[in-house]
């Protein structure tokens, strides 16, 4: 963990204005710190040896191994996944809040860029949808380098504004996406969640892997204010005068209720949800993504009864 903390400091990363450079810095640094991944290879990769059985294709017999051991073994290879991932970036005004050096949106920008870079490095197709109350950007998944640059350029251009309407975007996504893709939602989830959860479940029903990165600010998590203040809602511009000492407990309880409900629904719908604070290193989020990928593969293999192994 200590190594991870030394790896990427989001405050330092925020000083890199070029998002492409930023994403490459994150991804290369992140990958160099990891062990070799079974998913990192291109094309067909060797998985294991298996004793030859009658009917096995003789093309996959390892003759060199036969020369050394005098036994016949066949090589097994893991099939390429051909993942199509769509990144959903919440661009609503509530994302424009930050009590520290970074706003939630800036953090989300960096995260989306890093994910896109990783996906591209795995030769997966990656697409982008940015939205607030409307869709702002829609780039369908593709795996070429030019497309990645377009995504990064688009992410860099975005600015948070207006209210949020996640469910309509998810509904649109369900309509346009081919089944068995991956959807990664990056949002602060500060809106009524019922409709959104329904849409996420709908995506799951279409065999999409769904990951939700919930971005929070430390001040939202603890409500550390001391002085009485009039709070202005970032999206609705409605004002509320509050005495922090008096309302803190209730605030934390309300917030906890809201996110517990979302978490519960996500768990029930096999949707991975993870909360990240803007002062946390980005690689934690990336690690979470890889763990999810690994688990998702294992799970799908188990469900199919066997790995999609070509022998």
């Amino acid at each position, binding site marked *: 963990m200590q190594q991870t903390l030394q790896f990427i400091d989001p405050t330092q990363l925020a000083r890199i204005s070029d998002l492409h450079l930023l994403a490459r810095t994150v991804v290369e640094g992140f990958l160099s710190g990891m062990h070799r991944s079974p998913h990192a290879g291109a094309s067909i990769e060797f998985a294991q040896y298996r004793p030859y059985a009658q009917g096995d294709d003789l093309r996959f017999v390892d003759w060199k191994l036969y020369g050394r051991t005098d036994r016949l073994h066949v090589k097994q290879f893991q099939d390429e996944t051909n993942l199509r991932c769509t990144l959903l970036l919440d661009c609503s005004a*509530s*994302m*424009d*809040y930050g009590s520290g050096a970074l706003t*939630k949106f800036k953090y989300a920008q960096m995260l989306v860029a890093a994910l896109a870079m990783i996906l591209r490095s795995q030769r997966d197709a990656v697409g982008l949808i940015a939205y607030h109350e409307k869709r702002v950007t829609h780039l369908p998944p593709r795996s070429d380098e030019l497309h990645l640059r377009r995504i990064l350029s688009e992410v860099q251009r975005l600015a948070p504004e207006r209210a949020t309407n996640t469910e309509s975007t998810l509904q649109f996504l369900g309509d346009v996406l081919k089944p068995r893709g991956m959807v990664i939602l990056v949002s*602060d989830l*500060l809106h009524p969640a019922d409709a959104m959860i329904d849409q996420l479940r709908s995506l799951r029903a279409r065999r999409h892997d769904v990951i939700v990165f919930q971005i929070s*600010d430390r001040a*939202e998590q603890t409500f550390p*204010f*001391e*002085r*009485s*203040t*009039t*709070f*202005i*809602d*970032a*999206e609705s511009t*409605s*004002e*509320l*005068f*509050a*005495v*922090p*000492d*008096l*309302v803190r407990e*209730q*605030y*934390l309880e*309300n*917030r906890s209720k*809201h996110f517990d409900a979302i978490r519960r629904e996500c768990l029930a719908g096999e949707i991975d949800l993870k909360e990240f604070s803007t002062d946390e290193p980005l690689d934690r989020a990336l690690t979470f993504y890889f763990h999810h990928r690994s688990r998702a593969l294992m799970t799908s293999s188990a469900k199919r009864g066997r790995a999609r192994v070509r022998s």
Partner: protein
Amino acid sequence: MPLVFLAPLFAAGATLVVVPWLVHQIRRPEREPMRFSSVMFIPKSDQRIIERRRLQHLLLMALRMATFLMLAFAFSRPFLAGRLASEESGSAADHVIMLDTSFSMGAEGRFEAAIERATEIINGINAPGASDASERVALLTFASSPRVLAALEAEDDVLAGSSEAARAALTGASLSEESTNYASAIARAGEILARNVDRDSDEAKPSGSPDAGDDRRRIIHVISDFQSAGLSAGEIHRKLPPFIELRPVDVGGHASDESGGNRSVVDIAVREIAGDKLRIQAKIKNWSESDSHDGRVRLIVGEKTVVENEFAVGPRNATQTSFEVEIQGRSRVEGRVEIGADELPIDDRRWFAWGAPRARSVLLIADPKPEVRWPASWFLTHAINPGADLPWETATVGQKDFAARLLNDPVRPDVVMACDLKGMSEGAATSLLDYAAGGGSVLLALNSSFEADALNERLLDDLSLRSEGLLRAGASPRRFSLLSWLDLDHQIFAPFRGAQYNDFSQIRFYNYHRIGPTAGMAEGEGFAGMNVLARLEGLQSGEKFPAIIEVAHGQGNFIIWTFGFELAMTNLPKDVRSLPIVQQTLRHLTGAADERLHWVIGETLHGAVRPSPSDDLWRLVEPGEASRELTGAELARFLALPMRRSGIESWSAAGDGVASSVAINLDSRESDPQRVAPEEFVHRFMSVRPDETSSLVAGDHSQEADAEGLAEGLAGGRELGRWFIGAMFALLLVECWYAPRLVR
């Protein structure tokens, strides 16, 4: 009971109350709304809580403002002016009018205004002059000391206490050249009124407090310019009792109102320099708030301007100018340094006097002692070697010729040193006593030849001393005593005051005369004439005998060395420290150290001159007066009085023509225009608590005074600064407790 501020400028600090107000305004939550990602989780605060919180903040702001206010008020010295119970009664009253006649009142129009105000006060008093009159008035002028011009009552004067008597006395009031001393004058006025209280009230009642039936008002009117220097001139031992009202009448105006400002010659120093010249340095101070350019300062000797210089001095600053004058063989030079007249002309000059140092004649009585290689006389004559640059003229005479020498010599010696005597003859002892009684000074070294009985009978009995003889019959270098105590404050031991100089552990006393006061005279108690200057370490019996004694006899005095100053009794003569001891002893005995030529008005010329109490005539010239002839006794009595006029005072013996003169100058502190607020003046002298009151000079009756009676509406003014400080700290404590608890 009006509240006034003695330092009102500090009250301007009360404007600091805006600081908490500003801070609260700037930090008002309503003024700084905060954009937050979402208010969906924030519950609405209860409106009552918000209102309560606003009130709490207002209260906190008020607390902070009050704290600042208390601080500002405490520094501005709030003073609650007192009110007398008798003031309300409108009853009869005794008035004492105090008129300041110090020289600072000589500023333009100030004394005239004071006379006018005094006349107004007298005119407003209905005092027909009968002893049972409803109102009585006394007039008292004061400067360095008070002077009663019109008494409140007098047995042989039916007009005493009347307005007529006071008005008539007022015409005789004149300015003096003295400085102000409020304490002694207020004490005198309080004494007049307190004495009157004692007489009026019941015998059984404590003195100094009014009788329950006596509702006379007692008022002191102080007409003055209220200079600060006058408050520091005398110590205020006791404040006025509360039943006396103090009414200040300020005629000083304000320093800033002064038209031309005041400059004065505040100091003068004279010293002889090479080439038979005198250097006279004068310090000129500009007391005003404006520059003084193109000033001219003159040196006047013998009413003739010798030198004139220019000077310039900044506001509230001083400058120094110097002159050189040739002595031209004169033994005395007198004159003054003077600057151009300003609004207070009296302090524009300062007098100086210089006299050529006079050689002091020392008569040494010594019997020849051929058997002693180094007798005491040898050491003493070498210690005051006349060949050196020392002011001593020595002559030696034997014991048997001493009386004749004293009788026949026209010039009396300044000091007689007796040593190496082979006992004390009756004639010599009588001559010594007569010489000292007539104002002479004697240094007597008691060697081992003296027999105790003869010494007591012929000499010491007359000095109220008694010798118990020598410590031991035969001296031995192996048995000795050390000095255990020295009076380092005495002039003789002045050179040894530094810690590095007063190690006398190597000075040994092998033998000495055990001398003490005669029986029945406890040392230092009943016999004030004896002064032990050095004491030897104690014997086994616990007794500590003196080594050096000073004892007065008639007009003169003796210094007795019990150790004889010979090598058989002490090793002191061989020690280098013996030289300053001998020199300082002679300087002390001849009064050379007391020769001071510059004096300040109000001082007495003690020590400056020792005229013989004989009937020889002396000629005295006072400043501004013609010369007059006095006997020695009359002159001595006159010189013991405080001096009242500035100038040159000189006197000379009619016979030998030797003259002395001193310069008498004003107290320069009186020129300082710094003034005290009349309210503070009242506060300084009026009592606040009953335990501060007293009948002043009528004895300390404060302890007996009826505190309850004094407290009943008779309290004078009180300064509330400490209460405000206390209130401020209390507010701070409340704030420290309240602020953290306040819902933010």
